[in-house]
């Protein structure tokens, strides 16, 4: 250490010592706040110094803001997965991410438009129109349309503790069952508006200043921090334009990009949500699936818990499909793609003998459906792992995942880790055992991965 660093450290130490003994007195706090708030109220022409009305207004509107912005994140994941779903009806796997977001609101309706290019689409573009209905009493409904026809309708139904997804063009539907805890979290999350907004605003935001949208004066914020999307997207940009007067969102925009593997252009998605209507009368009938009797139920599944145990179970399920390998990344869309590839490879191996004896062999519709039905619970299990990891990322738990380097044979290698206290991490190893380790021990373990 050179002389300059020595003197700097000495000064820092000096001020740290002094700083540790400096606290304001109650008397000082009272005087400063009284005087500052008095001036502030006067400056804002407030009628009363009473906090309650302001806080109430912020709570109401921030909950809805939170829901609207969170919905945009869900939608992006859902649409991306739906697009990716391919030959296995991947649309259903979006439920897991939807269900955790619904909070307590009064009513709200808004529309959206999404555009996807790249990935499996190549140079083509897929566009969908979206409609959302939110009600604190009745639940949540999300419809997607393509070329004017309804593609899917998803319902969160609190009274049934279920999420139902209906695909009219296929005459099929699926049900996802929720635990009491999951439902309670969905319906009650947002008690502290500051906390809920923090959950959304995970990254650094830039204030965009003022603008006008459809004749309404708005203020905007923008983030490009991928943590806001829970680390699910490689590139992420979100903008929220809020009516300066009502403090309610007027427009939400998202642009997302994710690589889709080798030999494929990256998937790009752009979403705009607008036409917000708040506290409107919504007919409870809107939230009833009313599934026609000739529709076939594809599956009824239990939503996995988002805890360590479920995360490990998801990794175990994936390793069983993928010959001991773990997902390269814990982004839902990437994992779905890997599972699809693994299932296809396994199926082709199973049918190899038949293909050899009959080159024209093709699996029957029933066989394909059987594969889909067996794969979906596995997808749900692994998606639980992704959602658990996403929550760790969003909560800034210094989470890391090494599935691209570690397999089930690397019994002592760190597969996943996150911070649990100042000096301690929780580690899941390659053999799917879990332990607490110190930061120092973790450093040694992770150095071994790099070697």
């Amino acid at each position, binding site marked *: 250490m050179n*002389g*300059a660093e020595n*003197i*700097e*450290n*000495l*000064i*820092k*130490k*000096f*001020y*740290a*010592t*002094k*700083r*540790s*003994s*400096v*606290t*304001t007195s109650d008397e*000082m*706090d009272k*005087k*400063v*706040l009284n*005087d*500052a*708030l008095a*001036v*502030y*109220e006067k*400056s*804002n022409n*407030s009628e009363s*110094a009473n*906090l309650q009305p*302001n*806080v109430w207004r*912020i709570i109401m509107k921030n909950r809805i803001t939170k829901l609207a912005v969170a919905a945009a994140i869900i939608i992006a994941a859902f649409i991306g997965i739906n697009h990716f779903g391919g030959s296995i009806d991947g649309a259903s796997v979006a439920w897991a991410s939807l269900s955790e977001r619904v909070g307590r609101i009064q009513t709200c309706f808004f529309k959206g438009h999404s555009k996807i290019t790249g990935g499996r689409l190549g140079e083509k573009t897929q566009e969908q129109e979206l409609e959302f209905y939110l009600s604190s009493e009745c639940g949540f409904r999300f419809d997607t349309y393509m070329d004017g026809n309804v593609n899917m309708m998803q319902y969160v139904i609190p009274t049934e503790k279920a999420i139902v997804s209906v695909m009219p063009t296929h005459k099929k539907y699926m049900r996802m069952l929720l635990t009491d805890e999951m439902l309670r979290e969905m319906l009650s999350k947002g008690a502290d508006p*500051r906390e809920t*907004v*923090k959950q959304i*605003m*995970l*990254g*650094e*935001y830039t*204030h965009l200043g003022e603008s006008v949208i459809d004749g309404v004066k708005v203020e905007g*914020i923008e983030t490009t921090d991928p943590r806001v999307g829970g680390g699910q997207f490689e590139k992420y940009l979100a903008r929220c334009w809020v009516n300066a007067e009502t*403090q309610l969102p007027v427009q939400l925009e998202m642009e997302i990009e994710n690589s889709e593997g080798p030999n494929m252009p990256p998937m790009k998605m752009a979403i705009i949500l607008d036409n917000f209507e708040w506290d409107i009368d919504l007919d409870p009938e809107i939230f009833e699936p009313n599934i026609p009797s000739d529709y076939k139920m594809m599956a009824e599944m239990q939503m996995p818990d988002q805890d360590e145990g479920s995360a490990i179970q998801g990794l175990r399920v994936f390793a069983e499909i993928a010959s001991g390998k773990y997902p390269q990344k814990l982004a839902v869309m990437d994992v779905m793609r890997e599972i699809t590839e693994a299932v296809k490879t396994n199926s082709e191996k199973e049918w190899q003998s038949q293909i050899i004896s009959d080159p024209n062999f093709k699996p029957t519709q029933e066989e394909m459906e059987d594969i889909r039905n067996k794969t979906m619970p596995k997808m749900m299990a692994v998606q639980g792992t992704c959602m658990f990891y996403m929550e760790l990322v969003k909560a800034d738990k210094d989470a890391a995942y090494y599935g691209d380097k570690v397999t089930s044979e690397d019994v002592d290698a760190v597969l996943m880790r996150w911070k649990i206290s100042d000096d301690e991490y929780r580690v899941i190893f390659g053999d799917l055992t879990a332990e607490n380790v110190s930061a120092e021990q973790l450093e040694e373990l992770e150095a071994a991965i790099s070697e």
Partner: protein
Amino acid sequence: MLEDKWLVWKFKHGSCNALQLIYEKYKNDLLALAIALSNDKKGAEDIVHDVFVAFAQLASKLQLRDSLKSYLSTSVANRARNSSRKKVKLSLDLDGVEIVAPASNQPDRLVMSREESQQVGSALAELPDQQREVIILHLQSGLKFKEIANAQHVSVNTIQSRYRYGLNKLRSILDGEVEK
């Protein structure tokens, strides 16, 4: 940083709660800064009080060029500077600022003996105000040179020079103490 942006946004849009939270978050750091700059605890409390009242008065007109912390810290520094011009410069005898005995659970790197602390304090008191101010803002409050330069309306080079000269002078004063 993220929380600050949200707090500022709410503050500008009429949230008393945001103002209160901002005060709670920064009050101790700002008081420590004001004490370091003014050498006077009572005066430092008045400085922090005036800074927050002026801050509250700005409300929706507030325009932050850098961080909220930088804004508040430089507001304190400006008031401390104005205040010291009106007083006879006092040596940093730490009256009214109690030096706490090192806590046994504090890491060694943060612990300083009373004797060492007095030596450093005296050395700092011998610096020209401008050099001491830059050192305090950079090393105590963690402000970047660019933020300090913006607040004081001088170039970054000027700030860096003041910092460098200040550290050199401190070193020579403290080396002289060691030789004694």
